[in-house]
């Protein structure tokens, strides 16, 4: 009983954070690449928009998401016709986490891509490569350390997502209840043993994740310099 109550939220948390990070990373890295090399008022505005979820309270994000994805929302109506509802489902939790982690990936990718020496990209251009080929074959591999660090940060942040998730996906045990929600639940119910167990699991998982990613980065460096 005790075992399953801890493992289910952990599984939901990892699933939601991983999918949200994956979905968000594609959009965030491409946005970082596109906006990083354009000047003018529109890119400036878009940059602010991409960073906004970082500073807004998660509940505000949750409210916006309900406006968009809710049953009467712009996208929600359309989804409902297709028989899909994101409200109170784990997919809704993914949407919430994806929006929350987006700026973390966007910001770190942008910084990492801007640090790539322009000369390598210019060299690739004179060798006949298209901008897409340069992005995938030169810029991205040269910036991967910074981007990877951003992804890890995003994953860890996604695991801890609380506010927006609660508003969209609710707090349904076994379905949308992630670790963060389960801890709050257990604490509110006065079930201290359960809360302590969940807190320990969350802490160990996050620590292992950060140590593991650091190890991967170091291994990558030593291999290239060997």
């Amino acid at each position, binding site marked *: 009983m005790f075992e399953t109550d801890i493992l289910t939220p952990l599984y939901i948390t990892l699933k939601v954070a991983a999918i949200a990070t994956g979905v968000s990373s594609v959009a965030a890295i491409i946005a970082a690449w596109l906006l990083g090399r354009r000047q003018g008022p529109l890119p400036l505005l878009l940059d602010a928009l991409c960073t906004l979820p970082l500073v807004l309270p998660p509940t505000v994000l949750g409210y916006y998401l309900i406006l968009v994805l809710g049953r009467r929302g712009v996208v929600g109506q359309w989804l409902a016709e297709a028989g899909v509802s994101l409200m109170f489902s784990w997919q809704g939790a993914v949407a919430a986490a994806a929006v929350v982690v987006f700026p973390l990936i966007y910001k770190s990718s942008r910084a990492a891509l801007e640090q790539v*020496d322009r*000369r*390598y990209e*210019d*060299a*690739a*251009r*004179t*060798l*006949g*490569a*298209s901008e897409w*080929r340069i992005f*995938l*074959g*030169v810029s991205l*591999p*040269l910036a991967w350390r910074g981007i990877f660090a951003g992804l890890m940060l995003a994953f860890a942040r996604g695991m801890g997502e609380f506010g927006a998730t609660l508003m969209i996906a609710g707090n349904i045990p076994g379905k949308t209840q992630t670790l963060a929600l389960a801890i709050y639940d257990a604490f509110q119910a006065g079930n201290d043993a359960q809360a302590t167990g969940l807190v320990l699991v969350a802490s160990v998982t996050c620590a292992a994740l950060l140590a593991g990613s650091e190890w991967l980065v170091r291994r990558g460096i030593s291999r*290239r*310099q060997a």
Partner: protein
Amino acid sequence: MISLHMEKTFAPGRTGEGFHLNVRLDLPSGKASIVLFGASGSGKTLTLQCLAGLARPDRGRISIDGEVLFDADDKIHVPARRRRIGYMFQDYALFPHLTVLHNVAYGRGGFFPWRVHAAERRRALDMLDRFGVAHLARRYPSQLSGGQKQRVSLARALNAAPRLLLLDEPFSALDPLLRLRLRQELHGMLADLTVPCLIISHDPEDVDIFAQRLVLFHAGSAREVREYPSLRAGHASTQACLCQLLEANAAPRLPRAC
């Protein structure tokens, strides 16, 4: 005929004064190698970048053998990847995450540079072999010496089959002793090529070895175009020859050492 008629202006910023490039040059595109000579900041590199498509002039027109690469009035700006102009960068700019072989194959490769077709692999190895560095194919650029990097970078540029090769200060990244030896080496390698070369330098020694035609740059414009061997013939030394040319163009701003 390489025809460069262009202007580009950089407004004065917080850190530096402004810069105005105003080049009117018509050079024969034969095999003879051309040296662009002038002090740092005289606009040589910017000129080559405009020619290669890495920088965009504000006004003017650039063409090679009648093919227009840039025309401000007609809004033509052929992207660098379609110009088929090889460029050897000052510090060679070899891709640090790719092996020597993958660097050389990049200009002809498929979408991902680390996946090279067997035929392209062979071609790249042949090219490396021409410059005597085929045994380094599996190394990474960080494991190469300065001279080896230069050869690999030349092989990489030529493997993309350019119609014109631009070399930006080919020896500035090397220490002086190595420079002496490599200058001879590169001269030998370039002599075997069928591709015309444009070389940038502020070193008189480079002019003496490479220049068949000399273009003098000063303060953002090309001041003189001369047949170098006949120009040199009238002087006791390279230094004397170039000093006289420089003084005739820009006496007040030259340092006394010359």
